């Protein structure tokens, strides 16, 4: 893991090549994180992978998170590993929600947050991006086969979003049967 000054050097080097890519850095709980502009996340990942002296060639994990009610609402985390030096760096792309305010979790009518797919850089991201799409409804542009991976194909909704209702359907025991007589029909 690069130390805090090392992380700043990485951020400066990326911004020197393309200003405005890294908006912030964070070095907390032993994790070095680059917070990047979602439009330029792919360029930052490519730089980290291909630059001599960086060589973060291994994508250990890709996952999404929902920070409702914060804005931007979503984030996609890339955890990169340099296998030569055994160093890790995280990249966090904050993705705004285009469907904010009009029932984004409903019947899938609201526009989905979009982000460039990194499958061309890291083939391992294929299934992980599909999972992020399945659970959070984040649409990855350029993904070769973006469809649900865990939930059934005909499932409606993005179940890991924070505004998705907790719990499944109601279970009818004798104590709540009076509210739903003949529920078994």
């Amino acid at each position: 893991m690069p130390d805090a000054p090392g992380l700043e050097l990485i951020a400066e080097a990326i911004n020197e090549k393309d200003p405005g890519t890294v908006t912030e850095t964070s070095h907390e709980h032993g994790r070095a994180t680059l917070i990047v502009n979602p439009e330029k996340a792919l360029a930052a990942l490519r730089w980290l992978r291909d630059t001599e002296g960086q060589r973060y060639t291994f994508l250990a994990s890709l996952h999404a998170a929902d920070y409702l009610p914060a804005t931007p609402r979503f984030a996609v985390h890339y955890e990169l590993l340099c296998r030569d030096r055994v160093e890790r760096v995280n990249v966090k792309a904050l993705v705004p929600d285009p469907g904010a305010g009009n029932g984004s979790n409903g019947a899938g009518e609201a526009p989905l947050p979009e982000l460039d797919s990194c499958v061309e850089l890291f083939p391992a991201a294929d299934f992980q991006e599909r999972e992020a799409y399945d659970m959070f409804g984040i649409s990855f542009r350029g993904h070769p086969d973006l469809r649900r991976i865990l939930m059934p194909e005909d499932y409606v909704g993005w179940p890991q979003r924070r505004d998705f209702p907790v719990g499944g359907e109601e279970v009818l025991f004798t104590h709540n049967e009076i509210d739903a007589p003949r529920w078994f029909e």
Partner: protein
Amino acid sequence: MEVERRKLGRVPAPTEQPKTGEELRAKQIRAREMLRGDVTDEELEQYVERSVFTTMLEKGLNWARANSIFPATFGLACCAIEMMSMVTARYDIARFGAEALRASPRQADLLILSGRVSIKMAPVVRRMYDQMLEPKWVIAMGACSSSGGMFHNYAVVQGADKFMPVDIHIPGCPPRPEALLHGFNKLQRLIQGDPDLGWRQRYNASGTEEWARLEPGTPSPEAIEAAARALEPVPAKEPTDA
């Protein structure tokens, strides 16, 4: 001739075993006489009464079915570990004639739902159930397959009887193999047309449902109202604007 009716399975039929060689010899001679046609009328009736056991075909079939169940080798989740140990020598379901687990639903007649059924697994389970040949039975093992259990979320079906008929529900998380065997024995009685009563009937405790907050034994106004509503025809639902 008077037909004696006995319950199969519970009470073993008394067998008259000949004690000595002479008795056996006498029995053989008697049988030979009967076959020759020498035994007639009253004597023949007595002979038949002593050596023939009559029952209904249906009862005999159910007795045979209950004592040679072929469960499907089918595990859904952690309950399957308990289900597996049910077959081991320690618990030994062979005592009840169900030790032969079939690897194909087409050869099985008991499906044990051992674990949570996710909504993606539900059509698969339903297809397995449909592939089984009649007669077939289902045990919902554990809290998850009975009611969803701890998985009150978007991924798990809240009770397997939402999509298929279930004969026996076994509580527990997971139930111990003994509990599963107990449920299995109840299923055997159910197959033989002599199901165990629910505990409310057995302990004469009707009206003690959770909503009964009055005197024990008398149903509450809500319960009476619910029962009345349950008997009413269901009104057609009006389409509502979402």
